[in-house]
């Protein structure tokens, strides 16, 4: 019997699982760095988070009699990214609950991979912050021998990220320290307190460069998002409204993690080039607004989640069809 599938009869080497596992691979440097800075507990939490994501997805697909595709890689990404968004001294059930919410409510209820509007990991994080705010934001462990330890003690705050420190204790000495070169270098390399995955800008960048090179993520989104945070926080800094410099802003509080790995999530970002620029720039602006005038110091999660909502609208920015009059 001859086979009768429609043209084309050949296919590019692109395949969905390859893309997904490519993203997983790109997260490995940051994961290794996180273990180095925070210790083995990082692996424990990440593993729990990934397991929870996989089991939730498998169960959902099983119960609803859908095809079991939980190993396509996307649930693993969500698991890792969710773990990257929690503090290292979270209790074990935090990543479990977060991934469950991310996969069940944010991804599967919306129709599964490809149909979710919100980035599952980010929405999972938002859920955790809303449900257990003290566990999620007030509970920071400084990295082993980290830069902030001296500063925090000086302030009577034992545990803080650079960014929470700024909002809790905006004193001149703190601000000066945050603006210092040592601080910025520490942020870049990864030697500061924060969530699992947001400590080292450098390691995140290495992973992201791989994604850009393989075209598994669009650099335009990252450049526009991070660039926009830099530009708008820079303007506020020059106007004297913001006390810390823009470099500090893009290196802290998950801007790198968000801009490189969350905003670029294919499913929840716009499909057109124009849409992607707008998505990134508007997202960055929102982030700066939240940081400057909002209640939460990070702002990254909410800025991206809000932009996720605008994606269907941005997708209407269709390029001009060949031959169609302008």
């Amino acid at each position, binding site marked *: 019997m*001859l086979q009768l599938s429609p*043209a084309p009869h050949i296919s*590019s080497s692109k395949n969905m699982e*390859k893309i997904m596992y490519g993203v997983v691979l790109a997260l490995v440097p940051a994961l290794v760095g996180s273990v180095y800075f925070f210790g083995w507990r990082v692996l424990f939490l990440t593993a729990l988070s990934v397991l929870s994501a996989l089991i939730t997805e498998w169960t959902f697909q099983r119960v609803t009699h859908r095809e079991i595709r939980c190993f396509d890689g996307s649930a693993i990404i969500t698991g890792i990214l969710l773990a990257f968004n929690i503090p290292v001294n979270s209790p074990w059930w935090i990543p479990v609950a977060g991934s469950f919410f991310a996969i069940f409510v944010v991804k599967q209820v919306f129709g599964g*991979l490809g149909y979710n509007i919100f980035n599952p990991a980010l929405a999972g994080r938002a859920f955790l912050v809303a449900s257990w705010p003290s566990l999620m934001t007030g509970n920071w462990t400084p990295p082993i021998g980290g830069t902030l330890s001296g500063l925090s003690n000086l302030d009577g705050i034992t545990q803080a990220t650079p960014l929470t420190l700024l909002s809790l204790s905006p004193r001149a000495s703190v601000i000066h320290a945050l603006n210092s070169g040592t601080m910025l270098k520490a942020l870049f390399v990864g030697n500061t307190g924060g969530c699992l995955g947001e400590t080292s800008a450098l390691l995140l960048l290495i992973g992201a460069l791989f994604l850009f090179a393989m075209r598994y993520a669009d650099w335009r989104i990252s450049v526009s998002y991070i660039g926009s945070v830099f530009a708008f926080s820079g303007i506020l800094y020059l106007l004297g409204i913001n006390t810390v410099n823009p470099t500090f802003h893009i290196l802290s509080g998950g801007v790198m993690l968000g801009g490189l790995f969350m905003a670029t999530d*294919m499913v929840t970002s716009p499909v*057109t080039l124009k849409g992607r620029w707008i998505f990134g720039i508007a997202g960055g602006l929102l982030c700066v607004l939240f940081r400057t005038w909002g209640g939460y110091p990070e702002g990254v999660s909410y800025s991206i989640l809000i932009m996720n909502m605008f994606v269907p609208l941005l997708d209407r920015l269709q390029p001009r069809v060949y*031959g169609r009059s302008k």
Partner: protein
Amino acid sequence: MRLLTFKGGVHPEDKKELAGFAPIERIKPPEIVYLPLSQHTGVPSKPIIEKKDEVEVGMKIAESNGKLSVPLHSSVAGVYMGLVNYPHPLGGRKLAMKIKVDPERTEEWKSEEKEVGTLSNKDIIKIVKESGIVGMGGAAFPTFFKMQPPPDKKIADLIINGAECEPYLTADYRLMIERAEDILKGIDIIRRVINPDRVWIAIESNKMDAVERMKEVSSSYPSFNISIHKTKYPQGSEKQLVQAVKRQEVPEGGLPFDAGAYVQNIGTALAVYEAVCYSKPLYERVVTVTGSVRDPSNFLVPIGTPFDYLIEEAGGVIGTLMKVINGGPMMGIAQVYPEVPVIKGTTGILIQNREEVFSGIVGPCIRCAACIDVCPMCLMPTEINKSIETENFDKAEEMGVLSCMECGGCAYVCPSNIPLVQQFKYAKNEIMKRRK
């Protein structure tokens, strides 16, 4: 070297090395040929001979039927066995004239070369029509009809399509290497009729020896330019050629002459030359037989030769036969019956065995936008597909689905193997049905 190109497109492996080195070879005719009455876009032709009649090579056996139709000629000498319902390479079964071949009398076309000299444009167009010439790049649109664009359309650029962008296929390439002089004479005849300001011969950069060959012989035609195009699929699509050469788009829903261009394929130019200068009707053509066959080849075959005969001529299948494709891998049609006959628009036969056949599992759209990046018509395949899934054909139309030329680029890159082209075909059909 400046390479001309267009927006979007994909880079499949070209696989031209399989058959590219095989010189064109005239095969000995099969025992029986089947000549479908429907050979081209437009109305099928009408038989004019009776069962049991003797036929000669090149004898007219069916006449044109209506405005957009051309006659059909016997590709062999032998006996007409009557009309049969026979599998057609474009799908289904269609009426075909069955001819039992007499191998003794089936000979090469012999005639003295005539000068084009005093022939008027009208004469040339008449010869082209009577010789049954249609576009040989696959679309099979009657050439005489194309040669008469509306008088208000000034054609500035005559573009001869030697891009042959479909992977695997090498028929046009071999023609350019082996028949360069004759092709140029054919182009010159078309030029006389169309009277353009410029003449372009468009060749992809993976065929530099063809470029060299054409440059060599075109020195005696000062107005001819050889344009070298980036090797990218679908470089040989009319609208993309116009964009590459003229940096101008053909208006939506329009034809190349709406942008002052006229595109004709290399093989057609040769057929025009042979018809005008040798009175030879179009009854044979070069077909690349390639893929998983032992000796990939370029055969000069009588129209109506069954595919399975040619597959055997090319040494037979390597491995387990899975797919017989009329055309190339990007736009070709997978056949139900391996005994379908070659028609005027058959550029090649691609064979895939079990190892080569591609069968990906269809997954959900992950919105990677790869399809948008590659669409040469600047469409948004993923979004159009979504509106088709919800039966919203108005939206699909508004998003330009009618401009889709079914090149397959989007489906080729889709990591979730979504059958996008099939969906667009379906939508175009639905939209056309609703218009009626």
